[in-house]
């Protein structure tokens, strides 16, 4: 058991929330300064947003507070007194709890079981009658309820997220840290959850630090904000005194951003991709695609929106030959699609998968080799279709590296040595440098910085303008609204709503995402 004592709550009976300050926190990983002298201040009962691009240091800062990392310099004050937090258990004993991007509940246990076993003083043998009575009393004090007697796996994402928060409150945590908590929720669920938290902060029951990169969430729910860029705190203050433009400028700095892609005005052409009545199973053998129908025309982007886990990733895997199709027909340009190299080359099908280092590259192979995945068995990279010609392969890689501004010390470097944005750019160079008729894109901007995101979106739009059919699967509704010509909402393995982007809105899409 932990011997740390709880810091005494600040004066005033009503205020249960804790305040937190970081003073000059720095964290260095080898050649990289992840955090440089960062000081933030969160008052008791404040809803504080931590805003920044990916890689700005938000997660690192939070991990220093939670004790996952020990800061190289600086300290953390809790209620004005220095807190010594060496590991996450200390953080918990100090009343700091965290909600992660992905769920940490045990799916096969009920909500009640999850809450009770999470307690540090959970007994070896449970007296369930007593525990249930205790939970009931606890729930009565809470502003929201979640059914506690069904397995967590049967709960919707929004309910699970609420249960994660309930767990922290049950453990009597007074400062909640949320790491992009809305990425798995529908817009409606996200607003409801953040609204509840806001209510709790206003009643001074908890303080909240929320990591996010969505301005909408900051302006709608947060009291104050700190903006990080490249490991430094570059600004912040009361949200009411800042405009979105101010925050965006702080976040991005003076990095020039490629202009928003221009959507060329063009009527959609023939059907390029025709998916009819697709069925496929997920890894557990449960149906993931269930009578899935969709057509994508030349010169249009169809965006598939949906709460993650409704079959989107299985759809992308089926289309990239990574998952067998149980039933249904994939027709590309009037030909039955087979996931082999001949088909890909002949029908000019290309793909930008999410997390390219994991899904589109071989990390330990070189940049040049990774760039040759499409062409290694065609001249000039191959001789007689069999012998590898390393010279032409390398020459081509050099040209692509230059054209797509991939930052690498050499085409012979392992691609794993490149930064995320540069890996994505190397994959873009490989997939988009030729003629593209069909492009399958999945969450192309996950984990990338602002400038890379703008660049990649512009490239996708360019392909559409040139006449490619683009299927865009994204968990980021804003991305879909920004890029797509038509939006299709996916729920429980099927499309239940299709509409041109111009004649729909977030609320309508959100309703269908929730399965109605």
């Amino acid at each position: 058991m932990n011997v740390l004592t709880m810091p005494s709550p600040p004066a005033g009976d009503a205020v249960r929330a804790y305040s937190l300050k970081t003073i000059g926190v720095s964290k260095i990983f080898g050649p990289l300064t992840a955090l440089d002298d960062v000081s933030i201040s969160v008052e008791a009962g404040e809803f504080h947003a931590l805003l920044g691009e990916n890689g700005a240091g938000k997660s690192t800062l939070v991990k220093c507070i939670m004790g996952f990392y020990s800061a190289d310099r600086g300290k953390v004050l809790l209620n004005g007194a220095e807190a010594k937090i060496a590991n996450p258990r200390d953080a918990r004993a100090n009343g700091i709890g965290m909600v992660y991007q992905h769920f940490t509940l045990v799916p096969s246990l009920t909500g009640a079981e999850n809450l009770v076993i999470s307690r540090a003083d959970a007994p070896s043998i449970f007296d369930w009658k007593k525990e249930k009575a205790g939970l009931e009393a606890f729930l009565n004090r809470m502003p929201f309820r979640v059914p506690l007697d069904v397995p967590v796996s049967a709960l919707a994402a929004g309910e699970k997220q609420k249960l994660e928060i309930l767990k922290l409150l049950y453990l009597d945590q007074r400062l909640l840290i949320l790491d992009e908590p809305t990425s798995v929720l529908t817009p409606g669920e996200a607003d409801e959850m953040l609204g509840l938290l806001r209510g709790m902060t206003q009643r001074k029951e908890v303080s909240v630090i929320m990591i996010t990169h969505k301005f909408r969430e900051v302006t709608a729910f947060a009291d104050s904000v700190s903006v990080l860029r490249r490991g430094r705190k570059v600004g912040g203050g009361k949200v009411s005194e800042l405009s979105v433009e101010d925050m965006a400028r702080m976040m991005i700095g003076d990095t020039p951003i490629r202009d928003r892609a221009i959507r060329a005005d063009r009527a959609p052409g023939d059907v390029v991709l025709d998916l009819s009545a697709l069925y496929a199973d997920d890894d557990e053998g449960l149906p993931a695609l269930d009578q899935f129908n969709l057509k994508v025309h030349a010169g249009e982007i169809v965006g598939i929106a949906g709460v993650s886990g409704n079959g989107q990733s299985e759809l992308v895997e089926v289309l990239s030959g990574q998952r067998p199709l149980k039933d249904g027909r994939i027709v590309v340009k009037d030909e039955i699609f087979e996931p082999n190299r001949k088909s890909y080359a002949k029908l000019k099908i290309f793909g930008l998968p999410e997390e390219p280092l994991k899904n589109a590259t071989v990390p330990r192979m070189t940049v040049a080799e990774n760039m040759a995945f499409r062409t290694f068995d065609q001249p000039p990279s191959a001789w007689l279709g069999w012998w590898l010609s390393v010279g032409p392969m390398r020459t081509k890689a050099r040209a692509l590296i230059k054209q797509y501004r991939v930052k690498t010390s050499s085409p012979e470097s392992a691609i794993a040595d490149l930064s995320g944005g540069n890996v994505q750019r190397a994959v873009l160079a490989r997939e988009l440098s030729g003629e593209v008729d069909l492009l399958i894109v999945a969450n192309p901007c996950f984990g990338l910085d602002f400038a890379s995101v703008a660049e990649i979106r512009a490239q996708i739009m360019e392909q559409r303008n040139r006449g490619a059919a683009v299927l865009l699967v994204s968990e980021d509704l804003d991305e879909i609204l920004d890029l797509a010509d038509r939006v299709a909402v996916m729920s429980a393995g099927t499309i239940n709503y299709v509409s041109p982007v111009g004649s729909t809105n977030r609320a309508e899409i959100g309703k269908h995402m929730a399965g109605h």
Partner: protein
Amino acid sequence: MADIAEPMAPPMVAASEWRGDLSIRIRRGAEYVAIPLFALVVSAILFSLFLLALGKSPIQFFQLVHQGGFGTAFSIQNTLQRAAPLILTALAVAIPARIGLVMIGGEGALVVGGFASAAIAIPLVTGKASPMVALIIMAIAGMIFGALWVGIAGFLRYARGVNETISSLLLTYIGIATMNFFVEGALRDLTNPNKPSTMPIGDAYMVGKIPGTDVHWGLAIGVLLAIVLHILMSRTTFGFAVRVTGGNARAALAQGIPVGKLIVICCLIAGACAGLAGFYEVAAIQGRANASLVAGYGFTGILVAFLARHNAIAIIPVAIMFGGLVASGGLVQRRMDLPDATVLVLQGLTFVVLLVSETLYGRFKIFQPPITADRT
């Protein structure tokens, strides 16, 4: 960790930068040599402690290994004789490893292949076929049955997702038991009362020696195969597709690479190598199939392949080194009064240290390319 990038920075000045290519490759190559060497040294030290605990002299041990494995012309030939099957069984591990499989069924494929060679020799010898023809048929039979043995494990992996490490290990036991079943039953040579064996193929049908040496042709064939397979893996589109699959099967599938087909082909090649080793054990050493085929070459080959980092060329010197260790086993046993399992202790230690040393890759600055500004 996410990165801090400067994506819109002007492109680097190309020409001067590319000079780094060669240095990067040299550094990477040096790492692949230095870390296994380091692992060898550490395991030698640990083994010395083991000997000291037994009250034996480590110095004497290593002197005897040198003397018994490499000291005289005779011992060198003895070493090379034992290196031949090790090269082939190591290839049987290295080729599947390139496509991401941990296949350890070389011992089974060797035994099955050797037994198939000896069995098919019976009608050939009794029918007085020409030795050349007989040997070719025997070699092909050995390779086919060896290929089948590892191929089964590969096919189960491809078709049903069965763990290939477990299935290939278990197939080894099935292979050994199958040979024993026939050798002690239907195919037993009843004129030999001592040890259940198949009928001897006779001196006229034995594989010859490399001229001027006492080493059979299996060594030359093994070296040749290692070179050919190295070229196949590094310089052909087939090898490229195999490396992509081994590095990231998901990415390979998304590129339309026929992953399942490549897996089965690699396993067939691997099994054929081990089966060929079995053929040479029968046709060049034993002259018949019996329990002596189960000499552990298949298992030592696993160690050789891992130590060589599954590089077919590097397998050659490593196999010779372990051939020497195996060859000196008898001498060590006699002179130092140590049980013959002692050498196995050294091999086991080396394997464990080697696996631990895998975590060292990328940790030493000297082997890393100069860090670019945005590397995180």
